[in-house]
């Protein structure tokens, strides 16, 4: 069933799995992986709507995904640099133990 609804459902499942990873796990790196999965789910939606939408020759959805992949790569690099900095200061990547700014 390569239909628009199938793509949207797959994207919703991927988004939920990524959200679960970002919220439920306690490793900071797993949080970043979950965010990457959610970004990929959004990309899949763009491609699906580009493919089944009214004006595929305008390439708008495809261009959006190309730029989104570039921005996601930048986000991953900065996020992992932050995690390495966190590890150097706290000797841990456990987000439950990084609570010095807690009120």
């Amino acid at each position: 069933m390569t239909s628009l609804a199938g793509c949207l459902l797959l994207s919703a499942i991927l988004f939920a799995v990524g959200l679960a990873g970002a919220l439920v796990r306690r490793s900071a790196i797993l949080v970043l992986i979950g965010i990457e999965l959610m970004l990929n789910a959004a990309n899949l939606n763009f491609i699906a709507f580009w493919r089944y939408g009214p004006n595929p020759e305008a390439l708008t959805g495809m261009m959006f995904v190309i730029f989104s992949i570039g921005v996601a790569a930048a986000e991953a690099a900065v996020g992992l640099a932050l995690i390495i900095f966190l590890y150097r200061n706290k000797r841990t990547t456990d987000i439950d133990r990084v609570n010095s700014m807690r009120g």
Partner: protein
Amino acid sequence: MLFSIFAILTVAGAVAAMSFRNLVHSVLALTFAFAGLAAIYLLLGAQFVGLAQILVYVGAVAILIVFAVLLTRDDGTAPRSILSSSWKESAVVVLLVFGVLAWTISRSLVFGQGGGSLPRDVSMQEIGNALMQRFALPLEIVGALLTVAMIGAVTIAVNEKEERR
């Protein structure tokens, strides 16, 4: 049919990535999910995006995450549980989000609508023309963003104590 196989593989990879205790295994499963998504992009007729997905995600992002995992080995006091302290509330939020998304999709007009005919292949020349003409400004901005992000990442991650010594 092919779409269902790749969709199941992708979801299995994503779920495995989120549930493994060992982070290196997680990244391996994540590459699996990214590759499955790339195959789905190819099935949908977006060749360039599918190959870019393989290059950027399977190639670069996965290697980056593996490096981060190896650079941040936890000390001996590893936590008993892999779940965070607020996992119950989080699970409720996740189920709510998925419920709303699935309900909206099942109620929308696209549900049950068959697949249209595959559009003709998009040539690389068309993509290049679009990038250089209509989308030239966003392309430049993404270039600047990548440069700034690279400088920022190096600035954050560099070891200042060793620099001063």
